[in-house]
Structure formats: C-alpha cells, structure tokens
C-alpha cells in the first residue's frame, strides 16, 4: 500500500516538472532541501545503553564510551507544488537503526489537496502529531534542546503512519485554531521486545487540535490504535491490544524566552503517564535552557491476562531527568548545542536503558549523560 503512495508522489513530482506554469506564481515548482545533525554523547552508566527511542539498538554506556547513534541523522526533502491546490512531499531520512546501519528510509511521502487555503486532505506516509514537536522531532534545528525529553517522547514510538488526514484551520480574531483528524496504520521497528521486531498498529485514528494566540500555543490530542504488542511479547497469537493516548501541551514563546510543558496519559494493558517542563532564555546567539522530565511506572488494568515478565519489565520502566543545556546559533542555518543530563532510574526498573545484562539490576541508579550536536538545515 505504501509503495502506491510513493508512486503517486513521484508521479506528481514528474507531472509538475513537465507543467511548470501550473501554480501561476513566480515560486519554483519543486523545492529541494534537507536537514541534519551530527551528534555525539557519553553516559557515565557503563551497564546499559542510553538510547533515545526504541528504534535505536545501541548507544553510549555499555556498547560505546562515546556514541553517535542518538543524535546523528541526515534527511533530504523534496516538495512539489503542482497547482495552488495540489502538492506533495517526499522525505528520506538516514539515521541509526537495527543492523547497525544508517540505511535511508522514507519518513514522509504524501500528496496534499487543499480545497481552500484552510481545508486540506493528505494521503500517504504522514507524521503523527502527538506532541508539540512530534512532526519535527528529527529536525534538531527547530528546537532548543539536543533532542525532545525522552521520558515523554518515548511514550509515542510511532513517528509516522500510512494514513489519510484532514486539516481544518479557523481564524477567530487573532486566535488561530487548527484541527486535524487522522486514520491509518503503521509499522515501526522496535527493540523494546525480546528480539528486534516490527510493531504493527491497525485502525489507528486520532484527533488533534492546536490553538494559537500570539506567543501562546496549546495542543491537545487523542488517539487510539490496535497493536500486536502482546504477540511480540509472548510469541502467542491473540487479540490485538488497544492503545490509547491523551496528550496535552502548552508553549509560551514571546521571542526572547520560552517556557513549555507537555503531558501524556497512555493506556494499553496498563496505564502510565509522563510529563516535562522546560524553559529557556535567548541572549543574543545563545539559548540556555533547563528541563525536568519524568514518566511514571505503569499500573496494570483489569480484564487482561496476567502480564508476562517482559510485559512487567516494559510497563515498569520509569525514570526522571534534569537537563541543562545551551544552544548557540553560531552560523547561518547552523547551531551547536551542548547538554548535560542527570538521570535517575526508578526504584524498581532499569528505566529506558537498553542492553542491560539479564542478571543486572540498576534500580534507583543515578548517572549523567553529556551530549553535543551540530544541527543544520539546507
């Protein structure tokens, strides 16, 4: 199914090249761009790997002293405007994943039809806008941090889905409101389960609303999907598990400083939650920032078979992090960032550490992570 989308996108791009007068403006029909990050990080915890998300198989700590796996990637982006109403994008990302490779993958490929400037529909591979920075989480240049707070952003492993979405934008005085509804499916690679696996989600739907008033932004989202996580955990075929997420975010950014906070409540066979709060101040080309982020251990819900030991391990993962960092806009379209994280694991889990030996418990452990990155857009 996904291949069909890419075909449509490529066909469209070809159509626009051959029909260069179509948009009626002086803007180029096809634009090429991209972004990237070159990052390195070190963790003081040598008994496990500090990894950003479940798709990254190894990182700093146990596997490597200094590692580039978390914050190094490059992406190329092709956007085409065929007519004022019809457009398409294709984005290919290369980042570290299983097989210890940076093999490029299609992150986004979709066609958009705008009925009016305020009502549009898209089909193809789309971002899932769970959080304020979900759609741009790979684009380090777009935010102050080295990466979004992992306790919160890890709650949503699905970065893209093969879906259809409808967008409606409304302007009331100076307040802008945009609402998005999405339906589709997704498959993502994850290392959360006993072996590297593909987590499939079907009947994925969600509704997301963003209200903007001057420097203030509020984002609320609700989504559901049926996943095969139990099958991946136990190896036994059974019913799909319904996952649901409720996420709320608020941001205030008048220009010279910013403050933001996000919160998520997740339900599958267990219920869990996560939040962060972050603030930064812009002094000329420097933006120092401070973030506190944490997630709570899951509590199992009734009505499901008793959880497996792997299920308990996954649900229990809980940790908190205090991050202090600075972004330096030292060059046009390029920044440098440095971040210090103090991580504390919960009293009954190894947190989100990966590759911890089976007989090792790091419950309650504290360690620090140092990261540096150069982000760029082109």
């Amino acid at each position, binding site marked *: 199914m996904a291949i069909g989308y890419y075909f449509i996108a490529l066909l469209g791009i070809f159509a626009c090249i051959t029909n260069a007068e179509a948009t009626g*403006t*002086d*803007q180029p029909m096809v*634009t090429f*761009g991209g*972004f990237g990050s070159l990052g390195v990080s070190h963790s003081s915890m040598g008994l496990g790997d500090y990894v950003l998300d479940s798709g990254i198989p190894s990182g700093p700590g146990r596997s490597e002293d200094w590692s580039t796996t978390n914050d190094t990637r490059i*992406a190329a*982006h092709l*956007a085409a*405007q065929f007519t004022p109403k019809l*457009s398409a*994008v294709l*984005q290919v990302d290369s980042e570290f994943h299983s097989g210890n490779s940076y093999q490029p993958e299609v992150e*986004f490929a*979709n066609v*958009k039809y705008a009925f009016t*400037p*305020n009502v549009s529909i*898209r089909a193809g591979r789309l*971002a899932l806008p769970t959080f304020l920075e979900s*759609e*741009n989480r790979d*684009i380090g*240049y*777009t*935010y102050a941090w080295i990466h979004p707070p992992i306790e919160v952003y890890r709650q949503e492993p699905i970065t893209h889905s093969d879906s259809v979405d409808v967008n409606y*934008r409304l*302007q009331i*005085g*100076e307040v*802008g409101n945009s609402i998005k509804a999405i339906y589709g499916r997704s498959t993502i690679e994850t290392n959360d389960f006993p072996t590297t696996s593909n987590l499939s989600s079907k009947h994925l739907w969600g509704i997301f609303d963003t209200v*903007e008033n*001057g*420097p203030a932004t509020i984002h609320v989202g609700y989504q559901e999907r049926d996943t095969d996580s139990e099958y991946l955990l136990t190896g036994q075929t059974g019913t799909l598990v319904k996952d649901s997420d409720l996420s709320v975010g608020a941001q205030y950014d*008048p*220009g010279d400083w910013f403050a933001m906070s996000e919160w998520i409540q997740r339900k599958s066979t267990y219920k869990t939650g996560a939040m962060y709060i972050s603030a930064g101040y*812009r002094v000329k*080309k420097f933006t120092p920032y401070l973030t506190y982020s944490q997630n709570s251990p899951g509590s199992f819900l009734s009505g499901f078979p008793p959880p497996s030991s792997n299920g308990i391990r996954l649900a229990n993962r809980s940790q908190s992090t205090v991050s202090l960092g600075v972004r330096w*806009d030292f060059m*046009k*379209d390029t*920044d440098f960032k440095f971040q210090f994280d103090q991580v504390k694991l919960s009293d009954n889990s190894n947190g989100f550490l990966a590759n911890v030996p089976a007989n090792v418990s790091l419950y309650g452990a504290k360690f620090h992570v140092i990261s540096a990155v150069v982000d760029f*857009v082109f």
Partner: protein
Amino acid sequence: MKPLEIIRNCLKLLLLAMSTVTASAHADVVVIVSAKSPITSLTAEQTARIFLGKASSFPDDGDAIPIDQAEGSAIRDEFYSKVVHKNSSQLTAYWAKVIFTGDGRPPEKLESNVAVRKAVANNPNAIGYIDKSAVDKSVRVILGQPVR
C-alpha cells in the same frame, strides 16, 4: 557617592545605552497593501500570522498574499524582529518545521523595496513591507508610522 545616586547614575547610563541602540536601527519599516485594496489597517499580530502562513486571508476576508524581502537584508531583519518577534535563526527554524512537515512554504521573496512596492501595488491581495522612504501613492501603509 550615596547608593541611591549610584543606582540613579546606572539607570541614566542604561537609558542612554538603550536610546543609542534604538537610534542605530536605520531601517524604518512599514507594512503596505495596494492603494486598490480595501484594507486600511492591520495589527502586528494579524500581519505576523499572514507572513508566517498561519492565516491566508485578511481579517475582513479576501485572500492575503505576503511578499517577503531578501534573506539577510536589514529591512527583513527589522520587520521580523519588530512585528513577528523572531530573529533570523528563529525564523529559519520556524520555516524548517513548516516546510519539512509539508504544512506550507514561505512567501515569495523580492530583492528590493521598489520591487516589493511594485508587486504590492499591482495586486490588491498582496501585502508587503518596505522602508518608509520607498512609499508612494501606489500603496497604502497599514501598519507602522503613517507617511505624511
């Protein structure tokens, strides 16, 4: 010197420094529409929303087509810092997010005040910003110091 006097002197110095900074901003930016447009005024917030692609029409209806100036020009930096409250790297970050998520594309850019004025004058839906000194009868100032 008494502590109060020291504070007073420090404040004076600070005020002096601030006034120097204001005076050194050479470009005097105004937001314009065509003289043929029915729009007579816009707030900074409404203008910012149009230039960021968050609004595609004027508050009283009618499509709004923003026309930008060249990247790195003093007038552009002045406009975005005063009206949109973003410096050039914040603006690049904003558009990176919009472009790479497929949500939109930045406004068309023209190379000079005169080019923007001509383009705006010829299109009743266009909105642009130019230096105050480049304003003539073909356009109407809707935000910023009115021209005598």
